[in-house]
Protein backbone atom coordinates (compact mmCIF):
# COMPACT_ATOMS: atom_id res chain seq x y z
CA UNK A 1 0.00 0.00 0.00
CA UNK A 2 1.37 3.36 -0.97
CA UNK A 3 0.95 6.60 0.87
CA UNK A 4 -1.68 8.59 -0.93
CA UNK A 5 -1.82 11.77 1.08
CA UNK A 6 -0.62 13.95 -1.79
CA UNK A 7 -3.14 12.65 -4.37
CA UNK A 8 -5.89 15.16 -5.22
CA UNK A 9 -9.11 14.27 -3.37
CA UNK A 10 -11.99 13.01 -5.53
CA UNK A 11 -14.46 13.47 -2.71
CA UNK A 12 -14.23 15.89 0.17
CA UNK A 13 -16.72 15.50 3.02
CA UNK A 14 -16.94 18.50 5.33
CA UNK A 15 -18.92 18.79 8.55
CA UNK A 16 -21.47 16.21 7.46
CA UNK A 17 -24.27 15.57 9.92
CA UNK A 18 -27.38 13.49 9.27
CA UNK A 19 -30.61 12.88 11.11
CA UNK A 20 -33.45 10.44 10.89
CA UNK A 21 -36.37 12.20 12.52
CA UNK A 22 -35.03 13.46 15.85
CA UNK A 23 -32.25 10.90 16.01
CA UNK A 24 -28.84 12.15 14.96
CA UNK A 25 -26.94 9.47 13.04
CA UNK A 26 -23.85 11.35 11.85
CA UNK A 27 -22.09 14.08 13.75
CA UNK A 28 -19.77 16.51 11.95
CA UNK A 29 -17.86 14.06 9.78
CA UNK A 30 -15.02 15.39 7.62
CA UNK A 31 -12.59 13.46 5.43
CA UNK A 32 -11.07 13.27 1.95
CA UNK A 33 -11.29 10.36 -0.46
CA UNK A 34 -8.35 10.17 -2.88
CA UNK A 35 -9.06 9.46 -6.54
CA UNK A 36 -8.53 5.97 -8.00
CA UNK A 37 -8.05 4.39 -4.59
CA UNK A 38 -10.13 2.12 -2.41
CA UNK A 39 -11.21 3.64 0.87
CA UNK A 40 -12.85 1.36 3.43
CA UNK A 41 -15.14 2.50 6.22
CA UNK A 42 -15.23 0.11 9.17
CA UNK A 43 -17.13 0.23 12.41
CA UNK A 44 -19.58 -1.74 14.55
CA UNK A 45 -23.18 -2.24 13.34
CA UNK A 46 -25.39 0.81 13.86
CA UNK A 47 -22.47 3.24 13.93
CA UNK A 48 -23.71 5.15 10.86
CA UNK A 49 -21.43 3.71 8.16
CA UNK A 50 -24.27 3.05 5.71
CA UNK A 51 -25.88 6.43 6.31
CA UNK A 52 -22.52 8.05 5.68
CA UNK A 53 -22.18 6.66 2.16
CA UNK A 54 -25.89 7.19 1.46
CA UNK A 55 -25.35 10.88 2.14
CA UNK A 56 -22.61 11.00 -0.48
CA UNK A 57 -24.88 10.16 -3.43
CA UNK A 58 -27.92 11.84 -1.87
CA UNK A 59 -29.80 8.60 -1.25
CA UNK A 60 -30.30 9.38 2.45
CA UNK A 61 -32.70 12.24 1.70
CA UNK A 62 -35.13 9.82 0.00
CA UNK A 63 -36.04 8.39 3.39
CA UNK A 64 -39.00 10.01 5.13
CA UNK A 65 -38.00 12.56 7.81
CA UNK A 66 -34.34 12.33 6.82
CA UNK A 67 -32.15 15.44 7.07
CA UNK A 68 -28.58 16.23 6.05
CA UNK A 69 -26.28 19.14 6.84
CA UNK A 70 -22.75 19.83 5.68
CA UNK A 71 -20.87 19.62 2.39
CA UNK A 72 -19.94 16.74 0.11
CA UNK A 73 -17.69 17.94 -2.68
CA UNK A 74 -17.21 15.91 -5.83
CA UNK A 75 -14.25 17.37 -7.74
CA UNK A 76 -14.64 20.52 -5.69
CA UNK A 77 -18.38 21.04 -6.28
CA UNK A 78 -20.91 20.53 -3.50
CA UNK A 79 -23.42 17.81 -4.39
CA UNK A 80 -25.88 19.52 -2.02
CA UNK A 81 -25.74 22.77 -3.97
CA UNK A 82 -29.35 23.92 -4.55
CA UNK A 83 -28.71 23.95 -8.31
CA UNK A 84 -27.49 20.36 -8.35
CA UNK A 85 -29.96 17.69 -9.51
CA UNK A 86 -29.77 14.58 -7.26
CA UNK A 87 -30.17 12.25 -10.27
CA UNK A 88 -27.07 13.73 -11.89
CA UNK A 89 -25.11 13.16 -8.69
CA UNK A 90 -26.25 9.53 -8.57
CA UNK A 91 -25.18 8.93 -12.15
CA UNK A 92 -21.66 10.06 -11.32
CA UNK A 93 -21.58 8.29 -7.95
CA UNK A 94 -22.79 4.69 -8.34
CA UNK A 95 -23.92 2.44 -5.52
CA UNK A 96 -23.94 -1.27 -4.74
CA UNK A 97 -26.16 -2.50 -1.93
CA UNK A 98 -25.78 -5.13 0.75
CA UNK A 99 -28.14 -7.60 -0.92
CA UNK A 100 -28.19 -8.14 -4.68
CA UNK A 101 -31.38 -6.87 -6.25
CA UNK A 102 -31.32 -7.41 -10.00
CA UNK A 103 -34.45 -6.10 -11.72
CA UNK A 104 -36.65 -9.24 -11.91
CA UNK A 105 -38.48 -8.36 -15.13
CA UNK A 106 -35.28 -7.75 -17.10
CA UNK A 107 -32.83 -10.21 -18.65
CA UNK A 108 -29.19 -10.29 -17.60
CA UNK A 109 -28.28 -8.06 -20.54
CA UNK A 110 -31.10 -5.59 -19.85
CA UNK A 111 -30.07 -5.39 -16.21
CA UNK A 112 -26.60 -4.23 -17.22
CA UNK A 113 -28.13 -1.66 -19.54
CA UNK A 114 -30.88 -0.62 -17.10
CA UNK A 115 -29.20 2.56 -15.92
CA UNK A 116 -28.45 3.70 -19.45
CA UNK A 117 -31.93 2.82 -20.69
CA UNK A 118 -33.85 4.40 -17.85
CA UNK A 119 -32.00 7.65 -18.16
CA UNK A 120 -32.47 7.62 -21.92
CA UNK A 121 -28.80 7.15 -22.79
CA UNK A 122 -28.83 3.56 -24.11
CA UNK A 123 -30.24 1.99 -27.23
CA UNK A 124 -27.29 2.89 -29.44
CA UNK A 125 -24.53 0.98 -31.20
CA UNK A 126 -22.43 0.88 -28.06
CA UNK A 127 -24.86 -1.27 -26.06
CA UNK A 128 -23.29 -4.64 -26.81
CA UNK A 129 -19.81 -3.35 -26.11
CA UNK A 130 -20.98 -1.74 -22.86
CA UNK A 131 -22.58 -5.01 -21.71
CA UNK A 132 -19.44 -7.02 -22.44
CA UNK A 133 -17.14 -4.46 -20.84
CA UNK A 134 -19.20 -4.25 -17.65
CA UNK A 135 -19.63 -8.02 -17.36
CA UNK A 136 -15.91 -8.62 -17.99
CA UNK A 137 -15.06 -6.12 -15.26
CA UNK A 138 -16.96 -8.26 -12.75
CA UNK A 139 -15.68 -11.58 -14.19
CA UNK A 140 -19.19 -12.62 -15.15
CA UNK A 141 -18.83 -12.48 -18.93
CA UNK A 142 -17.62 -16.05 -19.39
CA UNK A 143 -20.43 -17.39 -17.19
CA UNK A 144 -23.28 -15.65 -18.98
CA UNK A 145 -22.10 -14.84 -22.52
CA UNK A 146 -24.29 -17.61 -23.96
CA UNK A 147 -27.33 -16.69 -21.90
CA UNK A 148 -27.52 -12.91 -21.89
CA UNK A 149 -31.25 -13.03 -22.52
CA UNK A 150 -31.94 -15.39 -19.65
CA UNK A 151 -33.64 -14.26 -16.46
CA UNK A 152 -31.47 -13.25 -13.50
CA UNK A 153 -33.07 -16.06 -11.47
CA UNK A 154 -30.66 -18.45 -13.14
CA UNK A 155 -27.74 -16.75 -11.37
CA UNK A 156 -26.39 -17.61 -7.91
CA UNK A 157 -26.50 -14.86 -5.25
CA UNK A 158 -22.80 -14.18 -5.80
CA UNK A 159 -23.33 -13.85 -9.55
CA UNK A 160 -26.34 -11.61 -8.93
CA UNK A 161 -24.24 -9.32 -6.77
CA UNK A 162 -21.56 -9.15 -9.46
CA UNK A 163 -24.32 -8.38 -11.97
CA UNK A 164 -25.44 -5.51 -9.73
CA UNK A 165 -21.87 -4.21 -9.67
CA UNK A 166 -21.77 -4.48 -13.48
CA UNK A 167 -25.08 -2.60 -13.63
CA UNK A 168 -23.52 0.25 -11.67
CA UNK A 169 -20.27 0.15 -13.70
CA UNK A 170 -22.11 0.34 -17.04
CA UNK A 171 -22.86 3.99 -16.26
CA UNK A 172 -19.09 4.56 -15.92
CA UNK A 173 -19.39 6.24 -12.53
CA UNK A 174 -16.52 8.30 -11.19
CA UNK A 175 -17.09 7.02 -7.68
CA UNK A 176 -18.54 3.67 -6.61
CA UNK A 177 -20.08 3.36 -3.15
CA UNK A 178 -20.37 -0.19 -1.84
CA UNK A 179 -22.50 -0.94 1.20
CA UNK A 180 -21.25 -4.24 2.64
CA UNK A 181 -21.36 -5.87 -0.80
CA UNK A 182 -20.27 -9.26 0.55
CA UNK A 183 -22.39 -9.39 3.70
CA UNK A 184 -25.08 -11.61 2.17
CA UNK A 185 -22.68 -13.89 0.27
CA UNK A 186 -20.96 -17.15 1.15
CA UNK A 187 -17.15 -17.06 1.62
CA UNK A 188 -16.36 -18.25 -1.93
CA UNK A 189 -18.67 -15.73 -3.60
CA UNK A 190 -17.40 -13.10 -1.20
CA UNK A 191 -13.79 -13.81 -2.20
CA UNK A 192 -14.68 -13.48 -5.88
CA UNK A 193 -16.21 -10.03 -5.29
CA UNK A 194 -13.13 -9.03 -3.30
CA UNK A 195 -10.93 -10.12 -6.20
CA UNK A 196 -12.75 -7.64 -8.43
CA UNK A 197 -12.12 -4.67 -6.23
CA UNK A 198 -8.43 -4.34 -7.10
CA UNK A 199 -9.36 -4.08 -10.78
CA UNK A 200 -12.06 -1.51 -10.08
CA UNK A 201 -9.42 0.87 -8.74
CA UNK A 202 -8.37 1.66 -12.31
CA UNK A 203 -11.92 2.58 -13.31
CA UNK A 204 -13.17 4.60 -10.41
CA UNK A 205 -12.74 5.73 -6.86
CA UNK A 206 -14.20 3.16 -4.48
CA UNK A 207 -15.66 3.78 -1.04
CA UNK A 208 -16.59 0.51 0.63
CA UNK A 209 -18.42 0.02 3.90
CA UNK A 210 -17.72 -3.21 5.74
CA UNK A 211 -17.87 -4.60 9.23
CA UNK A 212 -15.37 -7.25 8.15
CA UNK A 213 -12.01 -5.90 9.21
CA UNK A 214 -10.02 -8.57 7.37
CA UNK A 215 -11.77 -7.51 4.19
CA UNK A 216 -10.89 -3.88 4.76
CA UNK A 217 -7.28 -4.84 5.44
CA UNK A 218 -7.11 -6.96 2.28
CA UNK A 219 -8.69 -4.66 -0.26
CA UNK A 220 -8.35 -1.05 0.77
CA UNK A 221 -5.67 1.62 0.46
CA UNK A 222 -7.18 3.81 3.17
CA UNK A 223 -9.38 2.87 6.09
CA UNK A 224 -11.63 4.99 8.26
CA UNK A 225 -13.13 3.95 11.59
CA UNK A 226 -16.62 5.19 12.43
CA UNK A 227 -18.05 4.90 15.93
CA UNK A 228 -21.39 6.27 17.14
CA UNK A 229 -21.78 8.61 14.18
CA UNK A 230 -18.29 10.07 14.45
CA UNK A 231 -15.22 9.44 12.34
CA UNK A 232 -12.62 8.40 14.89
CA UNK A 233 -9.75 8.36 12.41
CA UNK A 234 -8.92 7.80 8.76
CA UNK A 235 -5.47 6.86 7.56
CA UNK A 236 -3.57 4.53 5.27
CA UNK A 237 -4.83 1.01 5.84
CA UNK A 238 -1.53 -0.38 7.11
CA UNK A 239 -1.26 2.45 9.62
CA UNK A 240 -4.80 1.82 10.92
CA UNK A 241 -4.15 -1.89 11.34
CA UNK A 242 -0.62 -1.67 12.74
CA UNK A 243 -0.36 1.60 14.61
CA UNK A 244 -3.73 3.32 14.99
CA UNK A 245 -3.62 6.80 16.47
CA UNK A 246 -6.72 6.41 18.62
CA UNK A 247 -7.25 4.09 21.53
CA UNK A 248 -10.84 3.28 20.40
CA UNK A 249 -9.63 2.18 16.95
CA UNK A 250 -7.09 -0.10 18.52
CA UNK A 251 -9.71 -1.59 20.84
CA UNK A 252 -12.02 -2.22 17.91
CA UNK A 253 -9.50 -3.83 15.58
CA UNK A 254 -8.07 -5.98 18.34
CA UNK A 255 -11.60 -7.22 19.06
CA UNK A 256 -12.14 -5.66 22.48
CA UNK A 257 -15.64 -4.58 21.36
CA UNK A 258 -17.87 -4.44 18.30
Amino acid at each position, binding site marked *: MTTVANTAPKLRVQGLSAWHGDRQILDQISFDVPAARITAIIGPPGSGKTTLIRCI*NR*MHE*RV*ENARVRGRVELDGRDVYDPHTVP*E*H*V*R*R*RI*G*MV*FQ*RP*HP*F*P*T*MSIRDNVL*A*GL*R*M*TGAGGGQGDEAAVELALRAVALWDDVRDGLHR*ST*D*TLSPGQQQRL*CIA*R*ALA*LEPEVLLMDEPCASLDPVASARVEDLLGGLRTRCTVLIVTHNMQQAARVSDRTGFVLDGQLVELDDTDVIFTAPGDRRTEDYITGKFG
Partner: protein
Amino acid sequence: MPPPSRRGPAPWLATLAVWLCALLPVLLSVALVVLLVRGLWAAETPAGLEALIRPRALVTGVIGSVGVLLLSVAVAVPLGVGVALHLEGTRGIVRRLLSLNVASLAAVPSVIIGLLGFELFVRVLHLGHGFVVAGLTLSLLMLPIVTMAARAALLGVPSELHEAGCALGATRWQVTRHVVIPAALPGILSGAILAITRAFGEAAALLLVAGLALPSRPAEPEDSGTPRLFVLLTDAGAEGRGEALVGVLALVCTLLGLCGWALVVRRRHAHGRGR
Protein backbone atom coordinates in the same frame (compact mmCIF):
# COMPACT_ATOMS: atom_id res chain seq x y z
CA MET B 1 -61.85 -53.08 22.04
CA PRO B 2 -59.20 -51.78 19.68
CA PRO B 3 -58.75 -48.04 19.36
CA PRO B 4 -60.62 -46.54 16.41
CA SER B 5 -58.50 -46.70 13.30
CA ARG B 6 -57.07 -43.42 12.15
CA ARG B 7 -57.47 -44.54 8.58
CA GLY B 8 -61.20 -45.05 9.01
CA PRO B 9 -64.02 -43.56 7.00
CA ALA B 10 -63.30 -39.92 7.89
CA PRO B 11 -60.62 -39.35 5.19
CA TRP B 12 -62.91 -41.00 2.68
CA LEU B 13 -65.71 -38.62 3.56
CA ALA B 14 -63.38 -35.65 3.37
CA THR B 15 -62.02 -36.77 0.00
CA LEU B 16 -65.54 -37.25 -1.31
CA ALA B 17 -66.65 -33.85 -0.02
CA VAL B 18 -63.66 -32.13 -1.60
CA TRP B 19 -64.29 -33.88 -4.89
CA LEU B 20 -67.96 -32.88 -4.81
CA CYS B 21 -66.98 -29.28 -4.14
CA ALA B 22 -64.53 -29.39 -7.01
CA LEU B 23 -67.18 -30.85 -9.29
CA LEU B 24 -69.83 -28.32 -8.33
CA PRO B 25 -68.77 -25.57 -10.78
CA VAL B 26 -68.53 -28.17 -13.54
CA LEU B 27 -72.02 -29.44 -12.73
CA LEU B 28 -73.36 -25.90 -12.69
CA SER B 29 -71.85 -25.17 -16.10
CA VAL B 30 -73.29 -28.40 -17.51
CA ALA B 31 -76.70 -27.58 -16.04
CA LEU B 32 -76.57 -24.11 -17.60
CA VAL B 33 -75.79 -25.49 -21.03
CA VAL B 34 -78.48 -28.18 -20.75
CA LEU B 35 -81.07 -25.62 -19.72
CA LEU B 36 -80.11 -23.35 -22.61
CA VAL B 37 -80.32 -26.12 -25.18
CA ARG B 38 -83.64 -27.31 -23.80
CA GLY B 39 -84.95 -23.75 -23.88
CA LEU B 40 -83.98 -23.38 -27.49
CA TRP B 41 -85.53 -26.72 -28.33
CA ALA B 42 -88.79 -25.69 -26.67
CA ALA B 43 -88.90 -22.29 -28.37
CA GLU B 44 -90.96 -23.45 -31.29
CA THR B 45 -91.83 -19.98 -32.35
CA PRO B 46 -90.75 -18.47 -35.68
CA ALA B 47 -88.44 -16.06 -33.89
CA GLY B 48 -86.78 -18.80 -31.92
CA LEU B 49 -86.11 -20.91 -34.96
CA GLU B 50 -84.97 -17.90 -36.91
CA ALA B 51 -82.50 -17.08 -34.19
CA LEU B 52 -81.04 -20.53 -34.50
CA ILE B 53 -80.65 -20.31 -38.25
CA ARG B 54 -79.58 -16.68 -38.53
CA PRO B 55 -77.44 -15.98 -35.50
CA ARG B 56 -78.23 -12.30 -35.33
CA ALA B 57 -78.56 -12.26 -31.57
CA LEU B 58 -75.29 -14.09 -31.21
CA VAL B 59 -73.34 -11.68 -33.36
CA THR B 60 -75.02 -8.63 -31.85
CA GLY B 61 -74.43 -9.80 -28.31
CA VAL B 62 -70.81 -10.75 -28.76
CA ILE B 63 -69.73 -7.76 -30.87
CA GLY B 64 -71.54 -5.30 -28.64
CA SER B 65 -70.22 -6.80 -25.44
CA VAL B 66 -66.63 -7.16 -26.55
CA GLY B 67 -66.59 -3.64 -27.97
CA VAL B 68 -68.03 -2.06 -24.86
CA LEU B 69 -65.69 -4.10 -22.73
CA LEU B 70 -62.58 -3.14 -24.68
CA LEU B 71 -63.51 0.52 -24.39
CA SER B 72 -64.08 0.26 -20.64
CA VAL B 73 -60.81 -1.63 -20.13
CA ALA B 74 -58.95 0.96 -22.20
CA VAL B 75 -60.34 3.68 -19.94
CA ALA B 76 -60.35 1.97 -16.54
CA VAL B 77 -56.96 0.20 -16.48
CA PRO B 78 -54.69 3.21 -17.22
CA LEU B 79 -56.80 5.41 -14.92
CA GLY B 80 -56.80 2.81 -12.14
CA VAL B 81 -53.03 2.33 -12.33
CA GLY B 82 -52.63 6.11 -12.34
CA VAL B 83 -54.74 6.48 -9.21
CA ALA B 84 -52.81 3.67 -7.54
CA LEU B 85 -49.49 5.32 -8.40
CA HIS B 86 -50.74 8.60 -7.02
CA LEU B 87 -51.79 6.89 -3.79
CA GLU B 88 -48.23 5.55 -3.51
CA GLY B 89 -46.85 9.05 -3.86
CA THR B 90 -48.97 10.74 -1.22
CA ARG B 91 -48.52 10.44 2.51
CA GLY B 92 -50.52 10.69 5.70
CA ILE B 93 -54.09 11.93 5.82
CA VAL B 94 -54.46 12.55 2.08
CA ARG B 95 -53.58 8.95 1.30
CA ARG B 96 -55.94 7.61 3.97
CA LEU B 97 -58.84 9.69 2.69
CA LEU B 98 -58.17 8.78 -0.93
CA SER B 99 -57.92 5.05 -0.28
CA LEU B 100 -61.08 5.15 1.84
CA ASN B 101 -62.75 6.87 -1.06
CA VAL B 102 -61.62 4.22 -3.54
CA ALA B 103 -62.66 1.40 -1.22
CA SER B 104 -66.16 2.87 -0.79
CA LEU B 105 -66.50 3.34 -4.54
CA ALA B 106 -65.92 -0.39 -4.96
CA ALA B 107 -68.90 -1.04 -2.70
CA VAL B 108 -71.33 1.24 -4.54
CA PRO B 109 -74.13 -0.83 -6.12
CA SER B 110 -73.96 -0.95 -9.87
CA VAL B 111 -77.41 0.65 -10.26
CA ILE B 112 -76.05 3.78 -8.61
CA ILE B 113 -73.04 3.72 -10.93
CA GLY B 114 -75.52 3.41 -13.80
CA LEU B 115 -77.42 6.45 -12.56
CA LEU B 116 -74.16 8.36 -12.28
CA GLY B 117 -73.23 7.37 -15.83
CA PHE B 118 -76.66 8.38 -17.06
CA GLU B 119 -76.54 11.74 -15.33
CA LEU B 120 -72.93 12.48 -16.25
CA PHE B 121 -72.54 11.13 -19.77
CA VAL B 122 -76.10 11.32 -21.14
CA ARG B 123 -77.60 14.35 -19.41
CA VAL B 124 -74.60 16.59 -18.73
CA LEU B 125 -72.16 15.67 -21.49
CA HIS B 126 -74.84 14.76 -24.09
CA LEU B 127 -72.98 11.74 -25.39
CA GLY B 128 -76.26 9.99 -26.21
CA HIS B 129 -77.17 6.37 -25.56
CA GLY B 130 -75.07 3.55 -26.84
CA PHE B 131 -71.57 2.19 -27.21
CA VAL B 132 -69.44 5.03 -25.83
CA VAL B 133 -71.62 5.78 -22.83
CA ALA B 134 -71.97 2.09 -22.01
CA GLY B 135 -68.20 1.66 -22.10
CA LEU B 136 -67.55 4.74 -19.98
CA THR B 137 -70.16 3.69 -17.41
CA LEU B 138 -68.63 0.23 -17.14
CA SER B 139 -65.21 1.81 -16.71
CA LEU B 140 -66.60 3.68 -13.68
CA LEU B 141 -67.63 0.32 -12.30
CA MET B 142 -64.22 -1.22 -12.97
CA LEU B 143 -62.12 1.69 -11.76
CA PRO B 144 -62.13 0.98 -8.00
CA ILE B 145 -61.44 -2.74 -8.51
CA VAL B 146 -58.54 -2.04 -10.85
CA THR B 147 -57.22 0.64 -8.52
CA MET B 148 -57.24 -1.53 -5.43
CA ALA B 149 -55.62 -4.47 -7.22
CA ALA B 150 -52.98 -2.23 -8.81
CA ARG B 151 -52.25 -0.67 -5.44
CA ALA B 152 -51.73 -4.02 -3.78
CA ALA B 153 -49.49 -5.07 -6.68
CA LEU B 154 -47.41 -1.87 -6.47
CA LEU B 155 -47.06 -2.24 -2.70
CA GLY B 156 -45.75 -5.75 -3.30
CA VAL B 157 -42.76 -4.47 -5.30
CA PRO B 158 -39.76 -4.52 -2.91
CA SER B 159 -38.53 -1.08 -1.91
CA GLU B 160 -35.00 -2.27 -2.68
CA LEU B 161 -35.90 -2.19 -6.37
CA HIS B 162 -36.92 1.47 -6.07
CA GLU B 163 -33.62 2.12 -4.31
CA ALA B 164 -31.58 0.26 -6.92
CA GLY B 165 -33.27 2.20 -9.72
CA CYS B 166 -32.73 5.54 -7.99
CA ALA B 167 -29.08 4.73 -7.29
CA LEU B 168 -28.60 4.41 -11.07
CA GLY B 169 -29.56 8.04 -11.46
CA ALA B 170 -33.09 7.44 -12.71
CA THR B 171 -35.89 9.79 -11.72
CA ARG B 172 -38.86 8.51 -9.78
CA TRP B 173 -40.97 8.30 -12.90
CA GLN B 174 -38.23 6.46 -14.83
CA VAL B 175 -37.96 3.90 -12.03
CA THR B 176 -41.74 3.54 -11.92
CA ARG B 177 -42.00 3.02 -15.66
CA HIS B 178 -39.07 0.66 -16.20
CA VAL B 179 -38.92 -1.24 -12.92
CA VAL B 180 -41.98 -0.91 -10.71
CA ILE B 181 -44.85 -1.24 -13.20
CA PRO B 182 -43.30 -4.24 -15.01
CA ALA B 183 -42.75 -5.95 -11.65
CA ALA B 184 -46.35 -5.24 -10.61
CA LEU B 185 -47.86 -6.21 -13.97
CA PRO B 186 -49.10 -9.71 -13.04
CA GLY B 187 -51.01 -8.24 -10.09
CA ILE B 188 -52.38 -5.39 -12.19
CA LEU B 189 -53.56 -7.90 -14.82
CA SER B 190 -55.28 -9.99 -12.14
CA GLY B 191 -57.16 -6.90 -11.04
CA ALA B 192 -58.12 -6.14 -14.61
CA ILE B 193 -59.43 -9.71 -15.06
CA LEU B 194 -61.46 -9.40 -11.88
CA ALA B 195 -62.89 -6.09 -13.04
CA ILE B 196 -63.66 -7.46 -16.50
CA THR B 197 -65.61 -10.41 -15.13
CA ARG B 198 -67.61 -8.06 -12.93
CA ALA B 199 -68.29 -5.61 -15.72
CA PHE B 200 -69.12 -8.27 -18.27
CA GLY B 201 -72.00 -9.74 -16.37
CA GLU B 202 -73.26 -6.33 -15.35
CA ALA B 203 -76.72 -5.50 -16.61
CA ALA B 204 -78.08 -3.11 -14.03
CA ALA B 205 -75.66 -0.28 -14.68
CA LEU B 206 -76.14 -0.45 -18.40
CA LEU B 207 -79.94 -0.70 -18.37
CA LEU B 208 -80.01 2.95 -17.46
CA VAL B 209 -77.58 4.30 -20.02
CA ALA B 210 -78.06 1.98 -22.95
CA GLY B 211 -80.69 -0.58 -22.10
CA LEU B 212 -83.65 1.78 -21.84
CA ALA B 213 -83.40 2.59 -25.49
CA LEU B 214 -83.26 -1.03 -26.52
CA PRO B 215 -86.87 -2.13 -27.17
CA SER B 216 -87.38 0.58 -29.76
CA ARG B 217 -84.39 -0.48 -31.85
CA PRO B 218 -83.57 -4.03 -30.90
CA ALA B 219 -81.20 -4.86 -33.76
CA GLU B 220 -78.59 -2.14 -33.32
CA PRO B 221 -75.23 -3.91 -33.41
CA GLU B 222 -73.63 -1.69 -30.83
CA ASP B 223 -75.96 -2.79 -28.06
CA SER B 224 -74.18 -4.63 -25.32
CA GLY B 225 -75.35 -8.17 -24.79
CA THR B 226 -76.27 -8.41 -21.14
CA PRO B 227 -78.82 -5.58 -20.75
CA ARG B 228 -80.34 -6.54 -24.05
CA LEU B 229 -80.84 -10.09 -22.81
CA PHE B 230 -82.27 -8.79 -19.59
CA VAL B 231 -84.90 -6.84 -21.51
CA LEU B 232 -85.62 -9.70 -23.89
CA LEU B 233 -85.94 -12.29 -21.14
CA THR B 234 -88.11 -10.22 -18.83
CA ASP B 235 -90.28 -8.14 -21.13
CA ALA B 236 -90.65 -9.92 -24.41
CA GLY B 237 -93.15 -12.65 -24.97
CA ALA B 238 -92.33 -15.89 -26.60
CA GLU B 239 -91.03 -14.22 -29.73
CA GLY B 240 -87.86 -12.90 -28.12
CA ARG B 241 -87.15 -15.96 -26.07
CA GLY B 242 -85.12 -17.92 -28.57
CA GLU B 243 -82.98 -14.96 -29.45
CA ALA B 244 -82.36 -14.29 -25.79
CA LEU B 245 -81.30 -17.84 -25.11
CA VAL B 246 -78.88 -17.91 -28.01
CA GLY B 247 -77.55 -14.65 -26.69
CA VAL B 248 -77.03 -16.12 -23.23
CA LEU B 249 -75.09 -18.98 -24.75
CA ALA B 250 -72.95 -16.56 -26.71
CA LEU B 251 -72.29 -14.43 -23.63
CA VAL B 252 -71.26 -17.39 -21.52
CA CYS B 253 -68.88 -18.58 -24.22
CA THR B 254 -67.41 -15.11 -24.72
CA LEU B 255 -66.94 -14.64 -20.99
CA LEU B 256 -65.16 -17.97 -20.64
CA GLY B 257 -63.04 -17.17 -23.68
CA LEU B 258 -62.05 -13.76 -22.32
CA CYS B 259 -61.20 -15.14 -18.91
CA GLY B 260 -59.12 -17.89 -20.44
CA TRP B 261 -57.27 -15.42 -22.62
CA ALA B 262 -56.63 -13.10 -19.70
CA LEU B 263 -55.29 -15.98 -17.62
CA VAL B 264 -52.94 -16.95 -20.43
CA VAL B 265 -51.67 -13.37 -20.72
CA ARG B 266 -51.14 -13.23 -16.99
CA ARG B 267 -49.34 -16.55 -16.88
CA ARG B 268 -47.05 -15.49 -19.66
CA HIS B 269 -46.09 -12.33 -17.80
CA ALA B 270 -45.60 -14.19 -14.54
CA HIS B 271 -43.40 -16.71 -16.35
CA GLY B 272 -41.42 -14.11 -18.23
CA ARG B 273 -40.06 -12.86 -14.93
CA GLY B 274 -39.89 -16.33 -13.46
CA ARG B 275 -37.33 -18.48 -15.17
